[in-house]
């Protein structure tokens, strides 16, 4: 170690080196300890599909972080619910959501679905029946018999309660409700809880059925073409077939009846529904939360609040529905064309609050509440960019990037060695430390905040080799300047440092500012690049302060460097130093002889 005198002058190089050693070893140990030994790869390197969704809204303030985060939660569930594992959904920038779907699974299908606007509607149920190819083949003829007189009327009046489209709806309702009446009664016995999220309720259906009035089959209008088409579609729909479970709500006017599917977890059965026109729009839901009902001990339920429009419409519709008999006394909550939940209605619900209860687990209730909240968001998403990269292409790109990085590194190392000789070794060591730090931090960030290394990020890292090497050069040149001035190496190293430090800090600050601005205003690929650039710029400062400078300080004490060995890169003769005798500040002409 150093003598006390040199300590005060040289600082404590040993301590700094020990610190960075500890940090580096610590990070590497953490990396291996947590098993995240490799950075997560972005879709463009690993293969897969990346979808960029951009939020659009008439109300710009609606595109905010909270809304986006909620959207991310839901989309995440949606994508992973489609059987794609490890899909990664994150917000990016102010209005974007990036969905990265790794290869495997039904990627293409998820792409089509993921961008669909999550629209939430409350629609009265006009008819429902199980739908599964194997289980039951619903044929129109089979249904005719069961038609209780209540059913057609139920359908009819339910539609009357819905905002509009009553002309076409009743026809379909009466036609299909007949079938549904029977089908669903069977289902009821088997406990008609349902929904994709495994939620929803079944208020004792007896009361609901009891309340069904033997209504006046309200002047059953003649089926028009549209209704017939719907009828046919409904008859043909097989919800157990994935391809058929489309979002039928999308295709037609929300005020017109539509068909939809729903999955009953407990029965493992698909149901299909005919739904009336939209009674309440999801946007009218102001709040939805899962609450535990301690009073009645019924367990988890979902508490809903509506705005004015919503509560009026909800009161009116529930009032209507309460008078119906099953299945037309159900209120379907439809998200993206799938019935999420279809609770039975017992009475008109006024006051803008509603409770959906059933045999929820806390997760189910939360999930439903989430869906309801999300549906309440006035956000539409546009697919801005969809990129599919085959794993093969991805790995080729990665390989090319790594090769380029390696070649770049070798070139820089070679150049430093040729030009700076012994000093070049220091820059190599610095680059290695920098590389190890970058790698381990990236690996840890991959697990920590979901940072994924994409191609531009690789480019950023490669470009950073130059930045890191630049700092060494700035310092080396400064030292050499001092040596040229005639300073002894040890003094030169110390005198060069304040100036080099200043230059490095200023230029790194500019670099970091650039990266930060890029990161904040950009989206997608640019962000990956900016992130890497910013990270490596910071690391550059760390490395030069804690590694390069202390190392040079220590090495300046060695004979090899201090004596200006020709291979040290600090040979005073070679640098054309003035003789270190004060007062004789003439240039040395010995330069010529070297």
């Amino acid at each position, binding site marked *: 170690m150093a003598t006390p005198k040199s300590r005060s002058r040289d600082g404590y190089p040993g301590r700094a080196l020990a610190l960075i050693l500890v940090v580096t070893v610590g990070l590497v140990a953490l990396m291996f300890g947590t098993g995240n030994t490799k950075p997560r790869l972005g879709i463009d390197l690993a293969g897969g599909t990346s979808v960029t969704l951009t939020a659009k809204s008439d109300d710009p303030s609606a595109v905010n972080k909270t809304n986006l985060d909620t959207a991310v939660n839901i989309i995440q569930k949606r994508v992973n619910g489609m059987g794609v594992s490890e899909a990664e959904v994150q917000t990016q920038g102010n209005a974007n959501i990036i969905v990265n779907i790794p290869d495997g699974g039904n990627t293409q299908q998820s792409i089509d679905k993921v961008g669909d606007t999550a629209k939430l509607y409350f629609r009265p149920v006009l008819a429902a029946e199980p739908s599964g190819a194997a289980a039951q083949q619903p044929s129109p003829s089979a249904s005719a018999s069961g038609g209780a007189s209540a059913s057609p009327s139920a359908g009819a009046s339910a539609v009357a309660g819905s905002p509009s489209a009553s002309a076409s709806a009743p026809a379909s309702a009466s036609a299909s409700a007949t079938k549904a009446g029977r089908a669903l009664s069977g289902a009821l016995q088997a406990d008609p809880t349902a929904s994709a999220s495994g939620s929803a309720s079944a208020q004792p259906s007896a009361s609901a059925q009891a309340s069904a009035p033997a209504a006046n089959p309200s002047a059953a209008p003649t089926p028009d073409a549209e209704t017939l088409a719907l009828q046919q579609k409904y008859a043909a729909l097989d919800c157990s077939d994935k391809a058929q479970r489309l979002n039928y709500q999308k295709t037609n006017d929300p005020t017109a009846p539509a068909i939809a599917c729903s999955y009953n977890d407990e029965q493992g059965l698909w149901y299909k529904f005919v739904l009336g026109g939209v009674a309440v729009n999801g946007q009218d839901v102001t709040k939805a939360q899962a609450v535990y009902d301690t009073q009645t001990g019924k367990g988890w339920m979902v508490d809903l609040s509506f705005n004015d429009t919503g509560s009026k419409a909800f009161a009116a519709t529930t009032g209507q529905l309460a008078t119906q008999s099953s299945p037309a006394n159900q209120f379907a909550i439809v998200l993206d064309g799938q019935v999420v939940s279809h609770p039975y209605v017992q009475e008109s619900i006024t006051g803008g609050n509603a409770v959906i209860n059933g045999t929820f687990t806390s997760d189910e209730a939360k999930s439903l509440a989430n869906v309801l909240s999300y549906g309440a968001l006035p956000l539409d998403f546009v697919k801005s960019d969809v990129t599919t990269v085959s794993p093969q292409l991805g790995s080729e790109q990665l390989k090319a990037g790594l090769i380029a990085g390696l070649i770049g590194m070798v070139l820089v190392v070679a150049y430093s060695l040729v030009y700076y000789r012994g000093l070049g070794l220091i820059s190599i060591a610095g680059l290695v430390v920098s590389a190890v730090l970058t790698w381990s931090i990236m690996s840890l960030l991959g697990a920590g905040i979901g940072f994924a290394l994409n191609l531009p990020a690789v480019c950023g890292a490669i470009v950073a080799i130059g930045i890191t090497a630049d700092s060494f050069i700035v310092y080396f040149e400064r030292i050499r300047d001092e040596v040229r001035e005639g300073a002894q190496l040890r003094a030169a190293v110390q005198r060069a440092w304040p100036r080099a430090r200043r230059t490095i800090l200023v230029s790194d600050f500019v670099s970091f500012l650039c*990266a930060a601005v890029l990161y904040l*205003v*950009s989206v997608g690929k*640019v962000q990956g690049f900016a992130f890497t650039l910013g990270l490596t710029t910071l690391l550059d400062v760390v490395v030069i302060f804690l590694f390069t400078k202390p190392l040079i300080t220590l090495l300046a004490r060695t004979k090899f460097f201090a004596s200006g060995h020709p291979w040290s890169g600090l040979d005073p003769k070679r640098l054309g130093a003035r003789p270190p005798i004060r007062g004789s500040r003439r240039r040395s002409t010995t330069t010529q002889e070297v």
Partner: protein
Amino acid sequence: MSLRNIGHRLYQGEVSFDFVGKRKIWYSISAVIVLVAGIGLAMGLHLGIEFKGGSVYTVHKPGLSASQAKDTADKIIGSNTALAQTTDKGDVRIQVSAQESIPATTFTKEFSQAIGVQEQDINAQVIGPSWGADISKKALTGLIVFMVLVTIYMAIAFEWRMAVAALVALIHDLLITIGVYALVGFEVTPGTVIGFLTILGYSLYDTVVVFDTVKENTRGLTKQSRRTYSEAANHGLNQTLVRSINTTVVALLPVSALLFIGGGFLGAGTLNDISLALFIGLAAGAYSSICVATPLLAQLKEQAPDMKALAKRVAQRRASEAKAKAEAEARGEEFDEVEGEDGDGEQVAAGMVGQRNQPVSRARGKGRPSGKH
């Protein structure tokens, strides 16, 4: 003269390139380049599909020809607007414009059936028509925000003239880079935009390194009357020339590795797009920080009253010095000696004054009684 001494000689002022004094030449060169770049820009940039919207399918099938692919694609989309080209790797790249609203899934499926390849051998990229506009807008926002911030920062860390000069150099670099793209007709992709934006940081990085030395070199300049700001700046520039060249070379090495690997192994792609823009930008950045930013700074500085006064003093001094020199050759040496100690005590080489163009000083140094060492 061997190359390894050049650093020393530049540092000592034995060799000196007159960047600042010959600024008109550099300005003219830059003006011509920028003009040409402007013409190129007027002709329009070749925007990639990301900016126009549409879909790109890359089909990996040996033996598939572009025309074959186009025919098949046309059949699927039901018009003849598809564009097909073979890439360096033998893949076929098909572009379908955003107007043909055919889902990528459908296209991929039908195409793979028609041509007999696996669906996974087709890479699809679908870009909304507004995506490019979005990216461009964000890039522009980033550009402006960065420029404002960095100008403020430089104005504080250095001074406003340096900020202005650096900004001009930055715009200069961007114009050149974009101009080259327009002229050569390289495709502008988001990767290119990333490259452009990175040039911002790098161009300034380079300029900052040079300015830092210039600032240091011109500290306390008004206390002496031996050299003007321009001369001091030029000397600083020369002192850091090796450093500038080295940093640029070192920055360019990895980028060129990227460029050649990206281009050589993969054909066009993100790697190539970023590195090409960077390569042009870095080269332009090195040039501009030396030949545009510093001369401009010197020019701005010379307008300041104190520097004007200094220039006058220097001129006066030189006139009298020349007279004295003519009278007594030997005493001229002493002048230098004395003055070398003031103003810039540690590093101004004696005999720097007025010798910007030729390494007179070396000849002079040699002529000195060399018994001192």
